[in-house]
């Protein structure tokens, strides 16, 4: 027997419920009322409509044909004014009285309007339906709009209008954006991204009054007196379940319409679904539970026993191209611990909140690819103790459920280029493998693939793995050394992410297999720690190679070489006399001029080092750091001082650079040169960082080498002034310090990250450049000093034998 069903509200929940009902071929005669003059559409897609990515037609979920085919009587644009539950009838706006067997509330929610003075002015709107969206779309470019509310809806509105060229300001009462879904750090990253898109964001901002003119909104006045002019004011501060009609007809109502697990209200003939309901104390705004309710309601109407169960909720959001994810509970509480991973360079932030070996909550920003996996762990309350060390890096780093990394490569066509340096395609590699090249070395030898910069090594290995199947053994990622299975990159990430500021902390957190590392990992860790945490970490001489521990270069006979600094390669007769005197006094067997324009005193005994340093210090000279993984020399030509071709003061710039950079530690040695004209007499284009002066400024290029590999630098940027050149060089040095693997020269690092990646952070993004310079300067407040003077003064005894038993021997 066909029953009469009246549905109040054509929202997403009721639309889904009707689908389920019709799919089950239920015998219901449906009348659908909707106060909005249209049928069901996907309300969460209003944002793409606002930003212009979609049209309204594209977000309609059910059209006239569908209603027709299912016999739905549509009464769109009509409200219901009263319900008589005893008589089981509703009364429509036009006075029609219609009987029902079952009634479903899907009245949704109303936007909450803050009752500020002036909130009734023309031009003050909410963001809830297509009408609101149209108002925002009609606001032309260069008009001003203020959005009150820094939650998801407010930010979607702001981003959509900003994309249309509107000058948007977001006013948020809390300290950071989206405080319900995000913690402070993720909120900060989101804010930064929005500001970069030209949106003004004001947090901790209290609205006082909406100011008008001739009945129209003119500005928003904040409590602090700031006046934000606007042509449109959007309030997006939250929603309230729409319970008016339910309340009037006497249904049990709290925050929302009370429903049981079957979605039945206090009246067994009346159901409710969606944002208007309250179930077990909770109200709902996200789509997943609404759809679940819709399914349950349909089952109930069909006479089946289905129950709605509240589940752990996750939010995966996309606001203006910023990927966000949050799930569970991430508030600080006793007994909870955090695992945090941050990659400031990529704008990535991940935080997991752990309690009793179970993840309670997760916040992710920037890279949410692994969010489903984390959400599963939260939902299933998985014990994570076994994977705790690498948990934050996601499923690809766990033992249990590896992703299939081969799928992407397997899908490539034969003419896909694998090795960009040598132009080798996948097909050529496959042919070489078929001809008997069954390991990386053989493929390299026969095709040159991955033989140049090496960045495609992983791809070549994957082609091998696909072609050979089980016969190919994938070499494990190269670990730092035998003390750990982790790579340099893993360790650096963990040092940054977990803010590890001591070597024992790294050994502990990264699961070092030895008690205190070895001669390979300790110098690397010492560098990573001092580069990432200059203020917190104390340099450890015992983890440095002897040259850096004793500030001199050890020679094959155990003696040392001493190279005093000559700024930019400039010296004086007085300095030369002092060097000559020192060479005589300490009987230096060899005096040599170096390739970096310095003088090298070779063959100094360890115990004489403090003495010779003190002599050189007295003549005004300091350590030349010829022994360090750090700034070595800035080689210069004479430039405009003397040269008839010189275009700029190359010597002066070289001296300035050396005075700024000296003492800084870097992943490997760092050699610079400044040439005064493109004739390039200082050979700047084979240095780690080279400057070639031209009439119009300074060409800064990086990634040269003249050692085992010979490479020409590549142009990073040309800048007009010396100050710019110095800033760019400091920034590139800091970027290299923060990101490169220990013992990679700049050219090797550049081969891995790419020149474009470096350029983005130093040339394209001036704020990033400024921040890098600031971090470099901070570090230099600790390290820009002469170690020779300090050692000669405080550690001279360490250079002497601990004891001399010669006399006792004679006894």
């Amino acid at each position, binding site marked *: 027997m066909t029953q009469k069903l009246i549905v109040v509200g054509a929202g997403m929940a009721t639309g889904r419920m009707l689908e389920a009902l019709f799919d089950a071929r239920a015998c219901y005669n449906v009348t659908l009322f909707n106060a909005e003059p249209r049928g069901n559409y996907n309300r969460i897609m209003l944002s793409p409509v606002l930003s212009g990515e979609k049209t309204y037609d594209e977000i309609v979920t059910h059209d006239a044909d569908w209603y027709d085919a299912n016999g739905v009587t549509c009464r769109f644009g009509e409200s219901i004014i009263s319900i008589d539950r005893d008589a089981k009838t509703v009364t429509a706006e036009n006075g029609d009285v219609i009987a029902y067997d079952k009634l479903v509330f899907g009245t949704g929610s109303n936007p909450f309007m803050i009752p500020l003075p002036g909130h009734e002015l023309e031009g003050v709107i909410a963001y809830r339906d297509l009408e609101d969206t149209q108002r925002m779309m009609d606001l032309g470019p260069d008009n001003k709009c203020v959005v009150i509310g820094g939650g998801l809806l407010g930010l979607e509105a702001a981003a959509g209008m900003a994309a249309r060229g509107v000058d948007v300001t977001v006013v948020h009462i809390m300290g950071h954006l989206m405080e319900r879904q995000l913690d402070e750090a993720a909120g900060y990253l989101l804010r930064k991204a929005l500001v970069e898109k030209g949106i003004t964001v004001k947090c901790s901002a209290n609205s006082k009054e909406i100011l008008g003119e001739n009945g129209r909104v003119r500005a928003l006045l904040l409590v602090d007196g700031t006046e934000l002019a606007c042509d449109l004011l959007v309030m997006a501060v939250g929603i309230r379940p729409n319970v008016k009609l339910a309340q009037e007809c006497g249904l049990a109502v709290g925050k929302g319409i009370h429903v049981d697990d079957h979605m039945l209200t206090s009246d067994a003939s009346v159901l409710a679904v969606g944002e208007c309901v309250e179930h077990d104390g909770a109200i709902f705004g996200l789509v997943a539970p609404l759809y679940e309710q819709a399914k349950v309601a349909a089952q109930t109407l069909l006479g089946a026993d289905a129950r709605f169960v509240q589940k752990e909720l996750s939010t995966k959001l996309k606001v203006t191209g910023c990927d966000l994810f949050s799930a569970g509970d991430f508030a600080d509480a006793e007994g909870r611990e955090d695992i945090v991973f941050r990659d400031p360079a990529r704008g990535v932030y991940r935080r997991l909140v752990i309690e009793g070996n179970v993840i309670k909550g997760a916040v992710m920003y920037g890279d949410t690819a692994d969010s489903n996996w984390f959400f599963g762990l939260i939902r299933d309350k998985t014990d994570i103790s076994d994977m705790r060390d690498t948990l934050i890096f996601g499923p690809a780093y766990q033992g249990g459920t590896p992703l299939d990394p081969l799928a992407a490569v397997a899908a490539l066509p034969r003419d896909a280029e694998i090795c960009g340096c040598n132009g080798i395609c996948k097909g050529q590699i496959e042919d070489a493998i078929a001809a008997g090249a069954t390991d990386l070395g053989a493929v390299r030898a026969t095709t040159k693939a991955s033989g140049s910069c090496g960045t495609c090594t992983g791809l070549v290995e994957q082609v091998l793995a696909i072609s050979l199947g089980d016969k190919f053994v994938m070499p494990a990622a190269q670990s730092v050394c035998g003390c750990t299975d982790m790579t340099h990159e893993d360790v650096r990430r963990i040092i940054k992410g977990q803010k590890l500021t001591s070597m024992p902390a790294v050994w502990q957190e990264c699961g070092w297999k*030895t*008690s*205190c*590392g*070895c*001669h390979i990992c*300790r*110098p690397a860790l010492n560098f990573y720690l001092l580069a990432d945490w200059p203020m917190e970490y104390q340099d450890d*001489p*015992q*983890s*440095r*190679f*002897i040259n850096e*521990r*004793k500030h001199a270069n*050890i020679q*094959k006979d*155990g003696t040392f070489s001493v190279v005093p600094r000559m700024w930019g390669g400039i010296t004086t007769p007085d300095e030369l006399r002092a060097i000559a005197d020192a060479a005589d006094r300490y009987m230096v067997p060899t005096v040599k001029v170096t390739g970096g324009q310095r003088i090298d005193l070779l063959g100094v005994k*360890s115990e004489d080092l403090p003495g010779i340093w003190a002599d050189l210090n007295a003549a005004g000279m300091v350590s030349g750091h010829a022994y360090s993984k750090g700034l070595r020399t800035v080689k210069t030509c004479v430039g405009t001082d003397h040269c008839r071709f010189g275009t700029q003061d190359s010597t002066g710039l070289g001296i300035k650079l050396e005075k700024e950079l000296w003492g800084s530690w870097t992943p490997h040695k760092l050699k610079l040169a400044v040439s005064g004209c493109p004739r390039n007499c200082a050979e700047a284009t084979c240095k780690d960082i080279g400057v070639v002066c031209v009439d119009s400024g300074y060409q800064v290029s990086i990634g040269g080498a003249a050692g085992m590999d010979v490479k020409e630098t590549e142009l990073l940027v040309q800048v007009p002034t010396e100050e710019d050149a110095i800033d760019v060089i400091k920034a590139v040095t800091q970027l290299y310090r923060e990101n490169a693997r220990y013992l990679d020269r700049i050219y090797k690092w550049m081969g891995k990250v790419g020149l474009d990646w470096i350029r983005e952070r130093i040339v394209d993004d001036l704020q990033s450049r400024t921040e890098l310079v600031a971090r470099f300067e901070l570090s230099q407040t600790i390290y820009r000093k002469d170690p020779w003077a300090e050692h000669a003064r405080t550690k001279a*005894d*360490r250079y002497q*034998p*601990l*004891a*001399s*038993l*010669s006399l*006792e*021997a*004679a006894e």
Partner: protein
Amino acid sequence: MTDWIDIAPLDDVPRRGARMVRTALGCVAVFRTAEDEVFALDNACPHKAGPLAEGIVHGKSVTCPLHNWVISLETGRAQGVDEGQVNTYPARIEGGRILLDRTFLYARAVA
């Protein structure tokens, strides 16, 4: 018979470090590990006579500064694929001071 001689306070040698002791018969390197054990070895790597006292100390080993041979502080033997051994000498700590055995130090002359 042992003849312990007082060399220096333990704190004169840094943890995970070494200092050199000069004797009439060549130099001896005195090592202090992270766990405050002391070891004494000839200050010359079996490979190219590199000064072991200038090496990096890790666990109970030292890495020679010249070519990265790893030498066991307990046995004086080269680790891994390298072959060779240096002399080791009894060393101990007493009352915060490092002691070496004179008998053994001079026995080298006989050997």
